[in-house]
């Protein structure tokens, strides 16, 4: 019964995003343009340094297109439910959300999963196809690898949701989480592997990037599709994503419990 509510919320979110067709087309074009630009720069780098970071040129270009496909799906840049929630903080509607007979965090997670599902089949898949037409990509032929990739993308969305939920919760205290969100964007763009494969990060910076949750958003799903992690290493990868996802959701819950008390104080 309860599960049914969240399922229909997720489906509703999917349909809501599907309504904005022109926005989808415009966004897909933008992702494709950026994919072309970044793929060219990466090719130039790999021409002088073939095999850099353990990737050959075709793999590096494939990495760029995967990351472009994930950018909006996983909401590395932020957004999705964050926009709605921030607007509700500003208007005060958040008080209404809190006494609804569904779980606050679960509700927004459901909307975000619906959104991610829609973005995956549009802004994820189309730029990848365009990239495959325009550049030499190395994509697996085995459908099992694609299924493994989709699972890691789902976990990536979970981690991303956990992070964005925490960032948005600061709105309870600051009334305006725009600043926190901007900081989060910087950190997640950099440490997720969105800009360059984390293997290119030198020394300590690379070590740090590999333990932070952000790598679960782009680098790890890309590793799965490029088959850099298979067998037990793949299980370890899922474990890393799942552990961060669970920890962030739990933190979000704790933060929410504190925040709810805060709202009562404000209202009284």
């Amino acid at each position: 019964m309860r599960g049914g509510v969240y399922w229909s919320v997720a489906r509703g979110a999917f349909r809501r995003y599907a309504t904005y067709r022109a926005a989808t087309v415009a966004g897909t074009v933008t992702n494709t343009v950026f994919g072309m630009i970044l793929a060219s720069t990466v090719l130039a780098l790999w021409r002088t340094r073939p095999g850099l970071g353990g990737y050959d040129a075709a793999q590096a270009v494939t990495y760029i297109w995967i990351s472009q496909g994930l950018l909006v799906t996983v909401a590395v840049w932020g957004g999705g439910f964050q926009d709605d929630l921030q607007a509700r903080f500003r208007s005060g509607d958040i008080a209404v959300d809190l006494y609804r007979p569904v779980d606050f965090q679960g509700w927004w997670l459901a909307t975000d999963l619906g959104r991610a599902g829609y973005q995956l089949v549009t802004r994820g898949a189309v730029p990848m196809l365009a990239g495959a037409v325009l550049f030499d990509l190395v994509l697996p032929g085995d459908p099992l690898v694609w299924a493994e990739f989709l699972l890691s993308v789902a976990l990536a969305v979970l981690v991303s949701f956990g992070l964005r939920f925490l960032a948005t919760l600061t709105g309870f205290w600051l009334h305006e989480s725009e600043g926190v969100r901007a900081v989060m964007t910087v950190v997640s763009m950099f440490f997720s592997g969105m800009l360059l494969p984390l293997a290119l990060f030198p020394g300590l910076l690379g070590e740090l990037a590999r333990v932070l949750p952000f790598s679960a958003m782009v680098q790890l799903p890309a590793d799965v599709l490029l088959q850099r992690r298979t067998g037990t290493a793949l299980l370890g990868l899922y474990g890393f994503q799942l552990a961060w996802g669970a920890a962030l959701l739990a933190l979000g819950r704790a933060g929410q419990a504190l925040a709810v008390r805060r709202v009562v104080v404000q209202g009284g």
Partner: protein
Amino acid sequence: MAEPGGGGGSGGGAAARAGWAVRSWWLITGMWIRSTMAYRASFALSLAANTLITFLDFAVLLLMFAHTRQLAGWTLAETGFLYATSSVALGAANVLVGSVGGLGERVRSGSLDTMLIRPAPALAQLAAERFSLRRLGRLLQAFAVLGWSLTALDVHWTWDRVLMVPALLLCGTVIFCALFVGCSCVQFWWGEAAELQNAVTYGGATVLQYPPTVFAKELVAGTVFGVPLAFVNWLPALHVLGRTDPLGLPAAFRFASPLAAALCVLAAGLAWRAGLRAYRSTGS
């Protein structure tokens, strides 16, 4: 009342209108700045984050050059010069008119009507709408990189090269302003397509941050004869850095940025007028 935001006229009338447009922009901007300052902590964080996030592009360049001495034949200092000039031009345009991207939302909700009946040019109002000071972050960071690259460059500084730098920053800013306005006009017809503008402005600026030799010749030709991005910094930079043109264009192209900027403004102006004329408010 005259047609808002547009209309003919001549001589002193046009100058007075332009002055009033600038003044309106300034008044509205000042109001938004005061409003931002109501949430100081959020503002401080936003500005810092904005400076940092724009630094990320440069961090990518640094990371790339950590693994190679030259990218497609260009050194870090030369690429840094391209990066900085592109970012200054985009950053300044974003501060001045970046908010026009919000046009689609107003077309969809019909709230553009409110702007059209106010006694100030609609374009000036729209450009100042929700003005955010944190956009200065990109500009700050870009000027810092520019300063560094100018000292690191191995260039024989003659007076024409020195003068070329402020000239290209000015023309580049004008070109990006025109692109912001021109591309957002698409939203008069296609209200949700705000992101297309990003592909041209932010995408364009990203292209210009890298040496032209990185890209396919067709793309470079497209930025000269199609969307005139190459005139922002690629072409003038060839003169400043004393490099040969990968397309082998005549030297005159390197000095043609003011002309390109003028054409861009003209095209953006025409698009804006056509868009306003096509605007039918909502529900009809």
